[in-house]
Every structure is written in structure tokens, then in C-alpha cells.
């Protein structure tokens, strides 16, 4: 029996095409290195990237996909499924305004109208000076002390329009 010719292996190192800046790339690489072996790693990695960069740059998708051996479509699908993940950089402060029923019962709709007018932006928008991004949220768990907003990680209760202005004017 004639022996089979040795199988030729053509080494291909698929490097994901990505135009991330060096520091962004380092952040994404670090998140992947730290977390890719945990079970169900994709959400923890996306959280880590957003925590560090404020958003998840579009060009990080092929890098993460490569690291986790997923298709870009799978990573994109997850990134776009969850309301919290953002693809664009936020303003210096992100304000989440609760739209849910308990806050509606104490004036959330009026607060929403006021906030949009005061900031001159709609939901998902960022003020032109880059100071504030406004996002809707469906319940912050402060339902006995509404209307509620969250600025960064900080919950605020009983937010009247006047209180909202105070909070926005605070540094």
C-alpha cells in the first residue's frame, strides 16, 4: 500500500480587519484575554469594553468574534439585541430616564417632555456640547419614590422638572 502524500497545511493567520485606535485595541484585547475562557463570555466582554470605553466601537466586533471563534454576525446580533450596549460614544454623563408605569403615575411623562426640551435632544441623543446623553429606561427599581432617573450609576428619586434642572446644572 502506497503511503498517502503528506497533507499540505497552508498556514493562514486570519487577522480581523479593524481600525481601532491602539488604546481601544488594547482595551478590547485585554477584555478578551481576561474573559474569553469564562462560560458565556460574550456579555462579560461587551460589558468590560463598554465600561472602559463608554461604548462598543463597531470595529471591535471582528476582534471579539475572532477571539471567541464566533461569526461577526453573532457578535453584532448580541450587541444590537441589548438596549444597554451602545455603538456610539456617549456624552460625558449618561442620563437614564424611567418611562415605566410606576413613574408614569407620578409624572414621568411630564418629566420626559421637560428633559427633552431642556436638553434639546430626543432619547438616544447627545447634547451638541457632548455633555449629556439621554436614554429611556424601563424601571430603575425606585418605584415608590418616582419619577426616577439615573445619572451614570447614581439613582435619583422624586425628580421634579426643577430638580432635574438642578441635577443637570451640577458639575
Amino acid at each position, binding site marked *: 500500500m502506497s503511503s498517502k502524500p503528506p497533507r499540505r497545511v497552508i498556514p493562514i493567520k486570519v487577522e480581523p480587519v479593524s481600525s481601532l485606535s491602539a488604546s481601544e485595541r488594547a482595551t478590547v484585547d485585554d477584555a478578551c484575554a481576561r474573559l474569553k475562557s469564562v*462560560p*458565556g*463570555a*460574550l*456579555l*462579560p466582554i*461587551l*460589558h468590560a469594553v463598554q465600561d472602559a470605553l463608554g461604548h462598543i466601537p463597531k470595529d471591535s466586533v471582528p476582534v471579539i468574534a475572532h477571539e*471567541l471563534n464566533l461569526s461577526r454576525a*453573532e457578535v453584532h*446580533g*448580541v450587541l444590537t*439585541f*441589548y*438596549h*444597554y*450596549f451602545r455603538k456610539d460614544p456617549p456624552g460625558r454623563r449618561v442620563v*437614564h430616564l424611567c418611562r*415605566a*408605569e*410606576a*413613574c*408614569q*403615575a*407620578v409624572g414621568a411623562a411630564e418629566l420626559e417632555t421637560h428633559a427633552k426640551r431642556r436638553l434639546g435632544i430626543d432619547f438616544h441623543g447627545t447634547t451638541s456640547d457632548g455633555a449629556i446623553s439621554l436614554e429611556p*429606561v*424601563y*424601571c*430603575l*427599581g*425606585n*418605584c*415608590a*419614590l*418616582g419619577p*426616577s432617573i*439615573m445619572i451614570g*450609576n*447614581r*439613582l*435619583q*428619586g*422624586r425628580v421634579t422638572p426643577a430638580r432635574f434642572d438642578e441635577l443637570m446644572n451640577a458639575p
Partner: protein
Amino acid sequence: MTRTRVYVPRDAAARSVGADDTVEAIAGQAAQRGLDIEIVRNGSRGMLWLEPLVEVATESGRIAYGPVAAGDVPGLFDANFLTGGAHRLALGLTDAIPYFKQQERLTFARVGLTDPRSIADYIAHGGYRGLTAALQMEPGAIVAAVTASGLRGRGGAAFPAGIKWKTVLGAGADQKYVVCNADEGDSGTFSDRMIMEGDPFVLIEGMTIAGIATGATRGFIYLRWEYPDAKIALDAAIAAAYAERYLGENIRGSGARFDLEVRLGAGAYICGEETSLLESLEGKRGQVRFKPPLPALQGLFGKPTVINNVITLASVPIILDRGAEYYQHFGMGRSRGTLPIQLAGNIKRGGLVEKAFGITLRELLYDFGGGSLSGRPIRAVQVGGPLGAYLPESQFDTKLDYEAFGDIKAMLGHGGIVVFDDTVDMAAQARYAMEFCAIESCGKCTPCRIGSTRGVEVIDRLLTGDNPAKQEAILRDLCETLTYGSLCALGGLTPYPVLSALNHFSQDFIKPAAAAAGRR
């Protein structure tokens, strides 16, 4: 002289109305006056309209003052509040405040009482007695105790916890999991948040017992991102539990192992649905799975999985500690034990009320809640989150009981009660319910994905007064499709708020003909 202990909650709700500023003011005043005090950041007592609620430990017990703004603090020192002095904000002994005194606190026994960062405090107040008992028992006996207690899933579906556990115990696998559903997305609910921030060890203990009972060695708490304070509290408590060998390998020398970590969600309401949550934990889009297979047999990563809500798991330690009979003795009918009820929205005394099943809505709204915050008549309450029915005044005598609520086409869900006064537009609430379903639908099944958007459109047409009888018929037909054709409770229950608004508050759906003509 011993240091006086002053308690100011670290609960996110208390902080949202200035508890941190109050703490700073108290520390500043004490330093200025040369008084040696110890400030403990406890959980909230649940009387949220009184937050920030400051308590002082005295010989006769803890005396409460509230709500204490930072500006009130110098006056409190002048009034000698450290020895329980009289002041306009004084509320007397915390335990004697009727709102608190009339509760039956089993699951929430320690919330507000202890320092949630201190495992020693937890143990000193009866913590880990349930686990100690469980470690002496056969797994089957633990499951039997949970079954006998009558504990049903507090997340909303009310499935008997013991039956779920028994299925997992009986499943053969190399790895099993315990998953805690801490994706408390229902508006009007905050009991999960309060217990995770105010007594995180009780959840850890409950999950550890679930692991030992079913042979699961690894646990995950799937927590919504909107609860950053709970994340900090849980991470600290888990680290303390590992340090004291209440987690990890060889728990307290028993040979049992249980590892636990917190995972964050990312703002998807649907991930409170158990199969969608499991998908999310696996790193995927939070899309609902078909059942069967049940998660108890093929759950996380395809392995047998106990998946329960925070309150369900946090109710397990007391069952193991005091016995199934003790817990079972509370409640009515097939709803056994207690339910942490959350009074929310337009309510004067909003907060957490843990009571045995069987109390009526009216007692909760008026005796506990004190009526509406605005002082106007209460017109409607929504019970059970955004998928719960709107109930009119004529149904306020309904008892809180899973079956009694089912009988009136409503649901108790996670125990949230959102109050609306007579300024509410119920047609707008019905439209919002459809809009919410459209925003949060995972997109897997057609009735929910498309039906919710069509629902918004039909309600809009109905409100223009354009052939309303026809539009109403279409809306009811659509609701039937959603109810019977949806894969999970999001699409399946959205008709509850929509139809209850339409049935009980039909006048809100009839707009004046002139307005209709103007819009045509």
C-alpha cells in the same frame, strides 16, 4: 462611654433621596461636637416615604427619625436625638411604627436590621442556620421540606419550587447549575433589589442550599445592570462568604462544594423570562427557547438547572431553619407563606410590605398605603408589573392569592402594586402596554413581534373614533392571537393590561366626535 450606633440606609432608594448627604452631615456634626458615634449603613426598613430614615440605637430599642434631610441634622443633634430626644421628625421605636409592626417579616426578617456588609452580623441574627440544618440532611429531604412548605415561584409564574428542585435532583448529569433570576424588570417592583442590597447573604444561603439539595455545584446570579448598588453588595457578600468558607469547596468542612458569581444583564426586559435569561447567560441574544425541554432537565449550557427568582431562593433559609410547617402555616388556599408586596406609583406611603397571602388590595392601598400621594381618588391599580391587569375600585376587595387573582383575569406576578389616581388616561396605559411589548419583544414568535406593533396602531385608530366598533373587534381578536399564539408570557400576557383597561375603563377609549373629526 460606648459609641452610639446610628443607622442610615445604604439602599439605593434611600440614597436616591439624599441618604449619603445625611450621613455626611451626621458625621460632620458629630465630629464638630466631639461625639463618638458609629454610623452603620443598613438596608432599608421598607418605609420608603420616610427615607432617609435615621435610626439611633438606645437602651429601649432603635428609635427612628425621618425623613431626615442633611439640613435637618444640626437640629436633631440639638434635640439630643442620640438619646432618643423629641423632635418633629421623631417616629418613636421603629418596631412600633404601625406600617412595620403589622407586617409578617420572614424573608425580609433582617433587611434594615443588620449591616449587609457584615457576615458576622448576619450570623448573629440567625443567618446560616438554614444551611447548617441542610448540611445534616439528605438532598431528597431538603427538597421534600421545600415542597412541603408550599413555596411557589415568587418571580411571577408561581410554580412550586420543590417540584422544580425534585426534577433537577432526579436528573443525572456531570454538571448542574443554580441560576438566580435577579432581572427584576417589572415596573412597581423592587423587593429583589432591596433584599440583595439589604441582606445579600440570605440569597447566597438560599442558593447554596439549592445547590446542595439538587447536586448543583455552580451558581449564577443574573442581575440587571440597572441595579449597580446591588452588584456591589452581592460582590462584597460573596467575597465574605468565600472568606468564611460558606462558599467554595468543602463548605464549613462538610465536603459540599458551591461556587457563585454575579453576571450582569444589559437592559432587556425579556431576559426575566427564564429561558431567555439562560440564553443571555450563555452569551447569546436573549431569545426565548421552546419548552420542552424544561430548564430543570436541559437548562444552562444544556445541563439540569434550578432557576428561581431572588425572593424564592431567599425564602428557602427560613424554611430549612424553622421547618416547612412554620412557613406553610402562613397564607391561604394554595398560596402559602408570605409575599413581599411593593406599594408603588401614586401612593402616599410607598414601600415594602411583607404579609401572609390573604390580605386584600384595599387594606394594602389604604391601611398601609394611606391612599394616593396626590390626595386624589385612586382610580386604578396595576398589579404584577407591565403584564398585569389594571384593576378598578370594584375589585379592591380581592385577596392577594394566586388563584383569586387568576379568577378575575389578573395576576399577582412579583407582587408589585402600581397606583394611579383619577387623572390617569387608561387608553394611554393600554397603548403603552402594547408599545412596551413592541420595544421589548425578543422577536422569536410572530404574535408578539408583529402583534404588539399592530396593537399600537389599532389602539391609535380606535382613539381617532374611526369606526370604533370595528377597531375594538380587531383589538380583541389581536389580543386573542397574542394570548394563545405567543411563545412566552410577554406576548401571552400583554393582553391583560390592554383588555382590563378596555373592559373596566371603556369610557377612556371614547373620544369626543369633534376631536375625531378634527383628526381625520
